[in-house]
């Protein structure tokens, strides 16, 4: 006789299975857009959220569930602190995994940066010295995360405002090596490359041309601002403005090299109407389509 415990049956998943979105452009789902996205789903291929906003439950989850019924989802974390000298928090992993199991995202990601030191979590993506010690530390934390989740993650290049004197490799080399050592993918933020290349005097095209193309699983675009700093200008990645022309140009260069990688328009403060985000996403889509069509025309010749 078999004993059947009804309450132990896994709940059937109400969402479409995870798959790379057929339309490569996405936008961030943030609270000012909850109702509008629920009522009249915009013409984009996928949505991105910060999982930390949905940890533990809460009323937000209602809107995330509604959105996931219609869209593929990318869970883009900001709190794992993968570059901290201390191990990734078990509790953070547990709550993150709960969301992955429920919402079945096509991508899961965080950053090559740190936030936690001692008992403080500083709520920013802080810079790392690019040394062998840091690489080993980051890889240990990525491996722990991937083991816990039972899947690979993407790791994003951060915007940086300081560069360490003891760096013994470039950032793209650091990213490529982390990806090679752990099998993780790379989330290439084009605006972050532009910002930090300006702030440190690096070459943004060289960065994109040197990144391991096969590993790039997602790209991000966002707006930045210019701040006066002495006689110079420092660029600050604020996610509060439209994408700048120079960044669009750099994105075009990236698409020519990397192809139609899922691309996100990020906007996290001074929220515009939803239609503005969608317009930016369509701009990215137009660039992808134009380059794909050029490729097809070239192949036909």
């Amino acid at each position, binding site marked *: 006789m078999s004993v059947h415990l009804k309450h132990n049956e896994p709940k059937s998943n109400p969402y479409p299975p995870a798959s790379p979105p057929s339309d490569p452009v996405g936008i961030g789902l943030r609270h000012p857009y909850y109702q509008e996205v629920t009522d009249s789903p915009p013409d984009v291929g996928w949505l991105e959220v910060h999982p*930390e*906003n949905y*940890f*533990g*439950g*809460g*009323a*937000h*989850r*209602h809107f995330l569930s509604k959105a996931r019924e219609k869209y593929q989802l990318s869970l883009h*974390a*900001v*709190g*794992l*602190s993968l570059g*901290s*000298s*201390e191990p990734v*928090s078990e*509790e*953070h992993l547990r*709550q993150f995994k709960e969301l992955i199991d429920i919402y079945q995202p096509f991508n899961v990601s965080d950053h090559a940066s*740190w*936030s*936690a*030191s*001692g*008992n*403080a*979590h*500083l*709520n*920013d993506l*802080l*810079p*790392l*010295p690019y*040394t062998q*010690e*840091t690489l080993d*530390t980051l890889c240990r934390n990525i491996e722990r995360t991937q083991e816990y989740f039972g899947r690979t993650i993407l790791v994003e290049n951060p915007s940086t*405002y*300081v*560069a*360490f*004197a*003891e*760096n013994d490799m470039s950032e793209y080399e650091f990213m490529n090596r982390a990806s090679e050592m752990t099998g993780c993918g790379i989330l290439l933020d084009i605006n972050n490359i532009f910002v930090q290349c300006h*702030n*440190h*005097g690096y070459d943004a095209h060289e960065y994109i041309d040197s990144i391991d193309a096969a590993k790039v699983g997602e790209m991000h675009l966002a707006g930045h601002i210019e*701040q006066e*700093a*002495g*006689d*110079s200008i*420092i660029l*600050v990645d604020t996610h509060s403005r439209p994408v700048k022309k120079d960044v669009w140009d750099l994105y075009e260069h990236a698409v020519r090299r990397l192809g139609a990688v899922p691309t996100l328009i990020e906007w996290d*403060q001074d929220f515009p109407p939803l239609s503005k985000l969608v317009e930016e996403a369509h701009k990215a889509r137009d660039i992808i389509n134009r380059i794909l069509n050029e490729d097809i025309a070239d192949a036909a010749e």
Partner: protein
Amino acid sequence: MQLSEVQKRFKDTMLDHPKALDDPAADFAALFNEGDIPLPARLKVYRNNIIGSLTDVMIASHPLLEKLVGHEFLEMMARSFILENPPTHGCLNMYGGGFDTFIENFELAKALPYLPDMARLEIAMNEAYYAKEDDPLKAEELASTTPEKLQLKLRQNIRLVSSKYPVHDIRDFCIEDDPEKTMNVDTGGVKLMVYRPQLETKIVRLENDEYHMLSALKEKMTMDDAVESTLNTHESFDFQGFLQRQIELETFLTLATNN
């Protein structure tokens, strides 16, 4: 310098007085490359990101305090709080617990003695909003349960607030936002339940005996002990009436999952 030490020094600098960034210690400054952009300007971007984003979180969860003391004063209190109490983990939904007691001891806020209780009310509302979903005990389930099997446990979104000020009236006053009006805050205290039956956080006023009973249940007393404790101080406590009202408010956890 080892990575752990670099991160500790960076953290300490970020949480230090803002002026510490203008003239960072020589061994800390030596960690970074020199360039056209001065180091203090570079470090200030990080500090502004950290303190600015956390201040935004605090201001967003305290719209009533903002109405009562103004944006600039709330921002100043929040910044002082953040430097003394940075978050301890990467999820900020519940960040800001303890702001009420911080305000109690904040010298410049002592002229407004109801302010800590207003902070308590807003913290309760925020916690109710982010509380884990669970199912309520409904009248049908209650009716099909024998009295000896009945146990009452509060749902995770339930918060209780007691104040010697009329914080619910002060809240209405803030929401009404009429510059022509003033209000007297010395009209007596109030006991409230903050709860989230669906997507919206709500507030309901409680009688003293109801508050006593719910507090006892919140402290994980059994139902019988909670009733006894309530009757000891509130002789006229009507348990059946209490039960009926709280079932309507969906205060209790369904018996299917409350063991």
